[in-house]
């Protein structure tokens, strides 16, 4: 009976130890302190003088003491995985009693020598789950009796070791899970920071709006826009190569550069070139950014863009026709000089009440069911949404893509610049301006080039020959006179337009009389605008520069005159469909204020 009771008590204590170890693991995340308490309990139960818990390191070649109990603290002690009695037990997986260590050749007495402690007998059981070796528990010198461990002790330690193995494995898995969750939380934080880099939503009817859906937690896409003091809006949309954290970090960097440098100098070509120089210097090899930067001028109804390897943006005009514009430069982050020795190319696009869309390939490569959306699909969506506010329209497209595919394969980012509202406003200003022009009889003559629609004053087409210049001068004189400009200013504008037409005749057409010049004279509330359209070779802007006036020689003065006299001089790529859009448009603007 007594024996039975003793064994029952023993079992109860064992169960208690196991249960308490389990509780400890659940209650604390600190695995090392749990080892210590576990070891202390086991040592107490086996009545051992000391004990140690050894675990294999990640490489499996060393055994490290993670907890120790008794007169000598050996925690931190590291031995080779096969060394000593512990090493042997770990390798064989068989628990051992060594009654007299002095007779065991494997026994390593360095600790005893250092500490003055005398190890007499050892009890050691391996920690393992199936074939996975974890380490071993060692008990040293039994209190009382003959100071020797017996077979019952060995059995008990084996049982406890099996449970401890399971507990250790559980704890390790729990820690891994916690780590993973911590990382997920950090990723969510990163995503939150990223979202904060995107511009705030403007009014629901704001002409510039963007949308971004990330395929993963963080995104490699971004868009941004901000209004400049003069009412224009500087915008960008970019797609960083690759996905995940490194793409997100490069995105954050590029976005900050855009904000920072863009406010300083909002010139798309120059801006892209400066951002490129910064990114090239520091970006990890093989990473790049396709990027489009533009400036929208609601007073002129134009966007001026520079495109570094990004998807061609799309203009959906108010008459429902579509045009796309291919990139002029390689992506940002590849070449130290993105313009390859030239000023990065800029394109000026007349929106004329249309809407301009910039987007990432995640949009056109998005799936609706089994079918890729494609540019066609995208255009259909934006046409369908024509009557919605710009922001709502692109949000609807993004929603279609998100709901249309079982999983987002790539980030979806769209930016829209809708010129519709500004167009109506411009029309009203022009109508008012015309009314006041007609009402003003002070110049005593009716305008021979009576303005008709959209602020256009006159449009003339003449052969590109010197004989046409006189006619051109008369037309400009009359038009600028009707805009209320003073005598000197009229002379200046006439000179500038004459010089610009001369350049076309002499340089663009190279003296061959086979082309025409079309002059489009218009005005808005602020300016007189003369567009000079030719059908010659594209002008190399590098070669168009005013000469140094200190260099006294005939020729080269024309460009200087134009730049001196006009408020704005800009080359534009034709977009009127005439002769396959070949040739150039020079836009000369003179302020009426």
């Amino acid at each position, binding site marked *: 009976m007594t024996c039975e009771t003793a064994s029952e008590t023993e079992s109860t204590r064992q169960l208690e130890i196991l249960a308490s170890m389990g509780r400890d693991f659940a209650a604390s995340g600190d695995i090392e302190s749990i080892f210590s308490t576990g070891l202390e309990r086991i040592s107490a139960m086996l009545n051992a003088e000391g004990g140690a818990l050894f675990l294999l390191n990640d490489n499996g070649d060393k055994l490290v003491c993670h907890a120790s109990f008794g007169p000598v603290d050996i925690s931190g002690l590291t031995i080779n995985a096969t060394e000593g009695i512990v090493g042997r037990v770990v390798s064989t997986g068989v628990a051992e009693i060594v009654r007299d260590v002095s007779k065991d050749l494997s026994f390593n007495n360095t600790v005893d020598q250092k500490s003055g402690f005398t190890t007499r007998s050892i009890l050691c059981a391996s920690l393992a789950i199936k074939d996975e070796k974890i380490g071993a528990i060692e008990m040293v010198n039994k209190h009382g009796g003959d100071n020797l461990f017996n077979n019952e002790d060995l059995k008990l330690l084996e049982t406890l070791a099996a449970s401890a193995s399971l507990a250790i494995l559980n704890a390790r898995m729990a820690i891994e899970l916690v780590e993973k969750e911590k990382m997920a939380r950090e990723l969510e934080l990163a995503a939150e920071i990223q979202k904060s880099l995107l511009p705030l939503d403007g009014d629901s009817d704001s002409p510039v709006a963007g949308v971004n859906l990330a395929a993963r937690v963080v995104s490699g896409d971004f868009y941004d826009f901000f209004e400049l003091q003069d009412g224009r809006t500087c915008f960008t949309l970019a797609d960083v190569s690759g996905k995940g954290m490194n793409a997100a970090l490069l995105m954050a960097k590029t976005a900050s550069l855009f904000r920072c440098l863009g406010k300083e100098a909002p010139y798309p070509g120059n801006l892209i070139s400066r951002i490129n120089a910064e990114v090239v210097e520091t970006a990890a090899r093989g990473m790049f950014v396709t990027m489009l930067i533009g400036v929208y001028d609601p007073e002129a109804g134009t966007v001026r863009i520079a495109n570094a390897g990004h998807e061609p943006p799309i203009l959906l005009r108010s008459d429902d026709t579509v045009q796309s514009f291919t990139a002029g430069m390689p992506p940002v982050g590849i070449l130290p000089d993105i313009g390859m020795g030239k000023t990065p190319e800029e394109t000026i696009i007349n929106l004329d009440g249309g809407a301009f869309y910039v987007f990432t390939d995640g949009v056109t490569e998005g799936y609706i069911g089994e079918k890729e959306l494609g540019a066609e699909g995208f255009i259909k969506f934006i046409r369908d949404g024509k009557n919605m506010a710009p922001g709502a329209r692109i949000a609807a497209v993004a929603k279609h893509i998100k709901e249309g595919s079982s999983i987002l394969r790539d980030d979806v980012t769209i930016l829209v610049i809708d010129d519709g509202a500004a167009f109506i406003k411009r029309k009203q200003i022009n109508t008012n301006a015309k009314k006041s022009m007609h009402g003003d009889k002070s110049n005593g003559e009716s305008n021979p080039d009576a303005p008709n629609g959209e602020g256009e004053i006159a449009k003339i087409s003449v052969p590109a020959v010197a004989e046409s210049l006189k006619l051109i*001068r008369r037309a400009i004189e009359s038009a600028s006179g009707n805009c209320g400009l003073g005598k000197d200013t009229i002379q200046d504008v006439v*000179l500038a337009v004459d010089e610009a037409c*001369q350049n076309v005749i002499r340089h663009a057409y190279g003296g061959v009389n086979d082309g025409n010049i079309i002059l489009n004279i218009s005005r808005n509330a602020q300016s007189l605008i003369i567009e000079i359209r030719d059908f010659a070779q594209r002008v190399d802007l590098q070669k168009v520069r005013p000469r140094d006036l200190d260099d006294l*020689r*005939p*020729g080269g003065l*024309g460009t200087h*005159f134009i730049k001196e006299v006009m408020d704005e001089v800009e080359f534009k790529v034709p977009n009127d469909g005439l002769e396959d859009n070949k040739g150039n448009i020079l836009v000369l603007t003179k302020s009426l204020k």
Partner: protein
Amino acid sequence: MEIKISETSGVSVATLSGEIDLQTSPKLRGELLGLIANKRPLVIEMSGVSYIDSSGVASLVEAFQTARSKNLGFSLAAIGEAPLRVLKLARLDGVFVIHDTLENAIIANGGN
């Protein structure tokens, strides 16, 4: 543009009128260089010029430089407001010798 050529007490006088532009400046250039070849000082009377462009200015500059290289006098006279404005734009108003009347220009160039 019209050019009238005359000679007063050893000074060549070119009287210009009308508009000098890409169409007419080659003629102006030819006439002026021809006059300089006569090795007399040259005065250009411009009161009748209503317009001059960069090609016209270039013709004047070339003639001016040629005359100077031959140590010949070269003056503009009675230039109107509009062409003077263009010379100012080209920062040439200080380069050319400009007299307000033809008479003064002739005297300055050794005539009487």
